[in-house]
């Protein structure tokens, strides 16, 4: 944007006479009105922004600072908080469940990646080839996403029931022995991963499907002319063309699954034998069962740092791979 002064120079040839007729006072005045208008515009803008600034300050920015402070404090809501240095962290490390919770969470995330990453992608590739009943497939795969997660968890808990549950009934009907599902520490976590994958794969599948839709058909055509078979076309056209979406969703999925809470809270409560105690479940216990908000905040901080380090490492790694 050009300033009024330069535009007036362009509009009016700067002859000495025209300059003489425009006294400095009016320029000063104009600058003042411009300043006034700018100020008024800024005030209106901040007027429109103020509600957002207040809610962000109260429920995002302040809690960020507060969370870090809480990690180093002892809080009981009766006495004033006291500084305890790294005591909260030390306490966490002494808790035998701490290591268990991290191992379980990593196991959940790892398993969720195997299913929740591969299955939606393959489903999307498959759906992209299917020419009939497209609307039905989209609707069906996305329907579980709309169910409240508590309903999904309670429903699957009933499906997993070793007695009259759906799975053991179905297995029994074809003459197979039933499983223990949630009742055995060996399979409980895997059973939770199934629920989570079932409930969430709709959104990832449809995002992949949208990405697949943007691949130019000529690429497949050219590859085919060069003699590339189905697998080679998948490997050399589909993968590279959807690479970016795949990489971003992988990161988002790791971040999301590391925070798993509803499924273990509703379906197993952490059992059997602590096999489904996750980081967030333990954090919840520290805060809302033991009322130890300091240690719970320390746990949040650790989770945040772990995910932050992972994200930074992952982004660097993928960028490096892109450059080479």
């Amino acid at each position, binding site marked *: 944007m050009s300033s009024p002064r330069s535009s007036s120079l362009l509009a009016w040839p700067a002859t000495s006479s025209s300059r003489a007729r425009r006294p400095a006072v009016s320029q000063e005045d104009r600058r003042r009105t411009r300043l006034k208008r700018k100020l008024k515009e*800024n005030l*209106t*803008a*901040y007027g*429109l*922004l103020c*509600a*957002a600034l207040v*809610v*962000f300050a*109260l*429920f*995002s920015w302040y*809690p960020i600072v507060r*969370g870090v402070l*809480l990690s180093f404090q002892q809080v009981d809501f009766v006495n004033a908080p006291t500084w305890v240095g790294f005591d909260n962290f030390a306490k966490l490390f002494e808790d035998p469940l701490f290591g268990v919770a991290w191992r379980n969470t990593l196991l959940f995330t790892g398993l969720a990646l195997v299913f929740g990453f591969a299955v939606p992608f393959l489903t999307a590739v*498959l*759906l992209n*080839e299917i020419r*009939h009943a497209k609307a039905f*497939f989209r*609707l069906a795969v*996305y*329907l*579980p996403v709309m*169910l*409240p*997660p*508590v309903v999904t*968890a309670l429903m699957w808990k*009933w499906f997993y029931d070793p*007695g009259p549950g*759906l799975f053991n*009934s179905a297995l*029994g009907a074809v003459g197979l022995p039933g499983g223990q599902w949630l009742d055995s520490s060996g399979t409980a976590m895997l059973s939770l991963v199934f629920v989570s994958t079932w409930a969430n794969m709709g959104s990832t599948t*449809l*995002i992949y499907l*949208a*990405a697949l839709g*943007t*691949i130019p*058909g000529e690429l*497949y055509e050219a590859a085919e002319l060069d003699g590339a078979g189905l697998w080679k*076309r998948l490997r050399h056209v589909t993968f590279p063309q959807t690479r970016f979406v795949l990489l*971003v969703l992988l990161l988002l999925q790791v*971040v999301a699954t*590391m*925070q798993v*809470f509803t499924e273990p*809270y*509703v379906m197993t409560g952490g059992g059997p034998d602590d096999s489904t105690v996750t980081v967030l479940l333990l*954090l919840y216990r520290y*805060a809302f069962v033991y009322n130890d908000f300091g240690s*719970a905040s320390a746990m*949040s*901080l650790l*989770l*945040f740092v772990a995910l*932050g380090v992972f*994200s930074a490492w992952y982004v660097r790694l993928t960028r490096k791979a892109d450059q080479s």
Partner: protein
Amino acid sequence: MRTLVSPSALRSPRGKVVYGVVFAGTLVIFVLAFMFPLYWAVTGALKSPQELAATPATLVPHEWHPETFADAWSQLNLGKYFLNTLVVAGGAWLAQLAIDVPAAFALSKLRPKFGNVVLGLMLATLMLPATALLVPTYVTVTDLPLLHLNLINSPTAVWLPAAANAFNIYLLKRFFDQIPDELIEAARIDGAGPVRTLWRIILPISRPILAVVSILAVVTAWKDFIWPLLVFPDTEKQTLSVMLQRVAIDMPLNVLVAGMVLASLPMVALFLAFQRQILAGLTAGSIKG
């Protein structure tokens, strides 16, 4: 459009057979994986408690008990919990529109001094895993700084944090950025102030993005569990999800399942009505490939 499999391969006799088999197989798997569990839940609610507890389970109820849904409605006091959930989700929706739309408009079109800093600080909150703020936000909600209000058991404990939504502001700002400045300039020349411009010119042409933000807001609030679990310790104030998991152990299974089906119906209906907007919202924030 040309995809992985070429159209000519599909037209060949062998291609037709393979396609038919793959299509039928996918259809069967989808019906079994996504439709059957829902059928099982609905028919489960219609069975008698004895039939529901029997092994092996029955595929079609021997006796039909549609009155279970009415029983669930009265035994679980569903009317009250529907109303609670509606108030929580509706308020969260209105708060997000009322607070985030003007903010995004100001940042996009009025471009105040330090506007980019404000936007950056807002977007930075997207980097945080949602649960990292769970405990400090809870502590904040129990005693708001300066005001010293306790929002526990009040729906504002959901409404206000929901409005601090950087993703909404990002979506809205991106849409407003595409609206030509000339339109705003013309409105100004006609004597309309910024608020009037927002109300009379920007909002009417922003319907698609407002629909996306609205649906995201309602669905997120309806599905949320952990935050309502924390801020509504009073059983009378709880949302459907929190109530259902609280009573799950003590309720007869058929009543519980009927309650679960009823609690899901609004979301399923919303999905059927607004499929296009919901699927647009899914890819709106995501990344171009």
